[in-house]
């Protein structure tokens, strides 16, 4: 309904063009042409047109999209009553079975509500290994004292103050309570997951970023295979399995997988009363007396949405990592269709460095000591960023180089790889495969390396000489890197490893209040509608601030918990 006026005005535009060629000179045609100039082109897809007449495009050159494509559940058309084959009744409907959806499902169920959980994929996404939290039981007992003011201040600063105060403040105040709830749910599971404070290891000590102790982990869980415990993202798969099992066994929960949500149902007052989904290829209607919680994640696997709402440089040369591709922004779109407000564009992406052209570099390379000591250069052999900056910043700088077709390279020598012979040998062995792919170059000197890489003569040699001089003087005159944590290049072998930006997720979404209730464009609550995790917004801007501990996972858990609590019990 929202789009009908847009479609009409665009039709009249096309009609106007036709009229111009037939009857030049009449004043009526002139005015139609003037109107036509405002409406430059018809929308290419639903993501451009969903905002209806109140839409304004910010024009940018189109980017290439080489990422994955997920199955889209959202449908923009009107699904008729007659198409519904089955109805289900519940108190709370949860859309999405990732971390925020499972926490929401379990919290609502524990509060006595009847819950229907629908997930489009066969498994919910579980791509994480730790999460942000403040003042949970385990943190309190370990004596962790989070400086809440510093955390909150840094969250605002990292979002360039483009966010409201309520959601981030609520995260700081309530994430501990939500963590304690998750801990209780692990006790009901059969994998015995243990939450413990993440040991504080300041990653960006002298870059201007504060050191904040506000993160928990699962690594103390006994019985987890060793390769699972410390593999980024790996442990999340098992946590989602555990919580899924607990949810499926809960007497108050009906969990439906391979069941994509298509659109929300509203009553005459605008209250969201349920959701239409597709089960075995047929439409079903889930009536939710107390609310619908959108926990659908971001939209990194939806090429059209990425193009519509992100900076092209953020995805055009990037690699993708997350292997579960249910994240197509169905929640964003369903919310927009019922009038929800969304974060301003361009949206924030969660990006990371250390990428190969396909995904992340393999662990044998990624975990090398060299990864903390390297210099970063472009195809011309020139540095362009302080290498000790937060990962998202290096990623952005890499994307800036790629805008003009220049690849980024991690530059290191054999003295930086490892002092441990076993690790050193393993790395050298791993390099062989990277060389055949054209991702790694090796030479006996800087001069030889720049020659084999076809860099402008003398550039790389000059860069390394300058870098060594900065190390000696203790000051990086070009980018102000902290040279205390750098090492001079003085090895026998020089290496350059290609370095892509990697997209993990998108983190902008529907604007919510402190209870997870979705707001409309006037800032008023849309009754019955909640959003959590990467489907929700008002938390980040520009980039995901990787230098703040685990706020993406932390907000997913916190607002899954809080939205369920509010839906069942009210404020």
């Amino acid at each position, binding site marked *: 309904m929202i789009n009908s006026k847009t479609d009409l005005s665009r039709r009249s535009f096309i009609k106007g063009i036709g009229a111009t060629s037939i009857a030049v000179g009449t004043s009526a045609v002139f005015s139609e042409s003037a109107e036509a100039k405002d409406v430059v082109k018809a929308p290419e897809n639903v993501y451009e047109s969903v905002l209806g007449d109140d839409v304004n495009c910010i024009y940018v050159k189109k980017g290439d999209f080489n990422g994955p494509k997920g199955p889209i559940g959202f449908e923009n058309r009107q699904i008729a009553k007659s198409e519904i084959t089955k109805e289900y009744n519940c108190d709370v409907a949860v859309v999405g079975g990732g971390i925020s959806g499972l926490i929401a499902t379990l919290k609502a169920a524990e509060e006595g509500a009847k819950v229907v959980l629908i997930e489009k994929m066969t498994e919910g996404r579980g791509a994480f290994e730790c999460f942000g939290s403040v003042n949970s039981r385990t943190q309190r007992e370990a004596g962790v004292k989070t400086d809440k003011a510093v955390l909150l201040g840094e969250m605002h600063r990292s979002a360039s103050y483009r966010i409201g105060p309520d959601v981030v403040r609520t995260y700081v105040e309530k994430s501990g309570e939500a963590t304690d709830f998750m801990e209780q749910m692990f006790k009901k599971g059969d994998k015995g997951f243990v939450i413990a404070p993440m040991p504080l290891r300041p990653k960006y000590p002298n870059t201007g970023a504060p050191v904040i102790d506000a993160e928990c982990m699962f690594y103390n869980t006994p019985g987890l295979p060793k390769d699972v415990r410390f593999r980024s993202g790996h442990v999340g798969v098992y946590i989602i399995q555990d919580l899924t099992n607990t949810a499926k066994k809960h007497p108050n929960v009906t969990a439906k997988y391979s069941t994509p949500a298509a659109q929300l149902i509203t009553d005459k007052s605008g209250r969201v009363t349920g959701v239409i989904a597709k089960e075995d290829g047929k439409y079903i209607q889930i009536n939710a007396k107390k609310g619908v919680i959108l926990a659908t994640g971001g939209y990194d696997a939806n090429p059209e949405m990425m193009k519509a709402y992100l900076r092209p440089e953020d995805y055009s040369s990037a690699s993708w990592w997350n292997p579960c591709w249910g994240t197509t922004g169905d929640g964003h779109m369903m919310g927009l269709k019922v009038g929800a407000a969304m974060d301003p564009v361009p949206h924030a992406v969660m990006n990371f460095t250390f990428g190969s052209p396909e995904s992340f570099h393999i662990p044998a390379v990624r975990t090398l000591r060299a990864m903390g000591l390297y210099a970063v250069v472009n195809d011309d052999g020139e540095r362009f960023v302080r290498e000790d900056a937060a990962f998202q910043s290096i990623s952005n700088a890499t994307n800036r180089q790629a805008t003009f077709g220049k690849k980024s390279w991690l530059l290191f020598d054999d003295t930086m790889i490892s002092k441990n012979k076993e690790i050193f040998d393993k790395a050298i062995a791993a390099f062989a495969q990277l060389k055949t792919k054209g991702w790694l170059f*090796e030479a006996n000197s800087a001069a030889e390396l720049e020659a084999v890489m076809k860099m402008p003569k003398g550039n790389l040699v000059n860069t390394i000489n300058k870098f060594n001089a900065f190390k000696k003087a203790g000051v990086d005159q070009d980018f102000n890197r902290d040279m205390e944590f750098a090492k001079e290049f003085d090895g026998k072998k020089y290496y350059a490893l290609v370095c892509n930006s990697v997209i993990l997720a998108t983190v902008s979404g529907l604007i919510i209040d402190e209870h997870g209730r979705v707001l409309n464009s006037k800032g008023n609550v849309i009754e019955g509608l909640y959003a959590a995790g990467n489907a929700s917004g008002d938390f980040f801007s520009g980039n995901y601030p990787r230098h703040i501990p685990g706020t993406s996972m932390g907000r997913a858990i916190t607002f899954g918990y809080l939205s369920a609590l509010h839906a069942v019990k009210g404020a």
Partner: protein
Amino acid sequence: MKYLTNRKLSLATILLFSAMSVIGFSANADSSIDKMHKGYDKAEQCLGCHGSYEENAKKTANLGKWNPHNSIHGGYVDCTNCHKQNKVEKNYCAYCHEYQPAAKK
């Protein structure tokens, strides 16, 4: 050949292709199966002939270390991520894992 640059690599590829086309033109031409798949670029089109995603997942239950159509990360996965018409264009599993689908028995 130890340090192949991208330019050299692409030159090598061109040389390789021209060599192949000289040796056997017919080997490079589209097979009847290739021709049959022309214009089929969307997952819905794939599933239209090949059956549902789940049916295809059953067929690949023993394809290497795990089932690419029913992995631990969850499906359904859009066919066009890995397949271009009748060819596997990208082996996405291999981007992160050592994985080579075993030939059908």
